[in-house]
């Protein structure tokens, strides 16, 4: 409450000062915001993730819970799952990735337009989890670059939301020179 009140006071003082001043701000009358373009674009990006749910295993249930009304990813702007990688900019890898499926994941990643981010959801996507065997990829970062790792089997919805907030923080601090990243660094697919 106190924070809001003080902000309101700052705004009120600013408006009052603008009215008193005689400079060009007087003419603009508070209708202009000055910022860096990069910061403005990053602000827009971090609150409008279009996610591609690459759901392969039991973590999918937890993803549905997070995306549903109780935990509600929509509150953070990540509202709209797109089931075409061309329209998405956040690749959510939810569940175990087997070696047979690895080329598909890489293909989906390469099909996404930049800028794009990758969210490793659950311990299988992060490191292979307890599937240390012949059939499972030992972490999707062996195939594609990963921005945020959320372990857990499955992760609690709170962990996912925290991961999303941390990803937003990361997006906020990005520079335009970070893009494009290019294709996934695995050889064949």
């Amino acid at each position: 409450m106190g924070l809001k009140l003080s902000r309101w006071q700052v705004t009120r003082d600013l408006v009052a000062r603008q009215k008193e001043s005689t400079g060009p701000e007087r003419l603009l009358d508070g209708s202009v915001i000055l910022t860096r373009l990069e910061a403005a674009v990053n602000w827009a990006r971090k609150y409008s993730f279009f996610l591609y749910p690459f759901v392969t295993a039991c973590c999918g249930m937890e993803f549905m819970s997070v995306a549903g009304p109780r935990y509600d990813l929509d509150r953070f702007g990540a509202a709209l799952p797109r089931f075409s990688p061309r329209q998405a900019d956040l690749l959510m890898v939810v569940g175990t990735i087997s070696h047979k499926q690895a080329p598909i994941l890489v293909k989906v990643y390469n099909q996404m337009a930049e800028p794009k981010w990758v969210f490793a959801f659950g311990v299988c996507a992060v490191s292979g989890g307890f599937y240390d065997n012949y059939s499972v990829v030992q972490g999707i970062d062996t195939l594609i670059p990963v921005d945020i790792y959320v372990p857990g089997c499955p992760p609690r919805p709170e962990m996912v939301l925290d991961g999303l907030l941390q990803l937003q923080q990361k997006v906020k601090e990005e520079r335009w020179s970070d893009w494009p990243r290019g294709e996934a660094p695995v050889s064949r697919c």
Partner: protein
Amino acid sequence: MDESVTLKKLAQKFPDAVVGTHRFRGDDTVIVTKDKIRDICFFLRDDPDLLYNFMMDLTVVDYLGREPRFEVVYHLYSLAHNQRVRLKALVPESDLTIDSVVPVWIAADWFEREAYDMYGVVFQGHPNLRRILLYEGFEGHPLRKDYPLKKRQPLIGPVN
């Protein structure tokens, strides 16, 4: 406990093929040689006292170090008589083949493909015996007891 109808009939009909039987809490088990497996399955399905019309499961067990090394296990259920039977066919490593039972129960199709994929048992007469879970180019059969625990053969990406 009475001797089961299934066990009795099988022993009568295929005296050479039946190697052993046992019965535990109403569940019958028959151990057979692999040669007549398809005839045995047709008999189990069609005999009016048996009518095992539901093939529930087919899998393989690897008894490494034993001879014969492999066992193909069939779990059958008779909806008409509410009876189950477990059929074990002995398959030696030197001749890793057995007749397919797809002509008997169409449900055996993918089970046999999986058994071939994981253990390398060749089901003769199967209409489409390819790998089902793993990919083309995968070397070996990973559920065998002598498959190296740490062997990795990814399609793409580093070996780890």
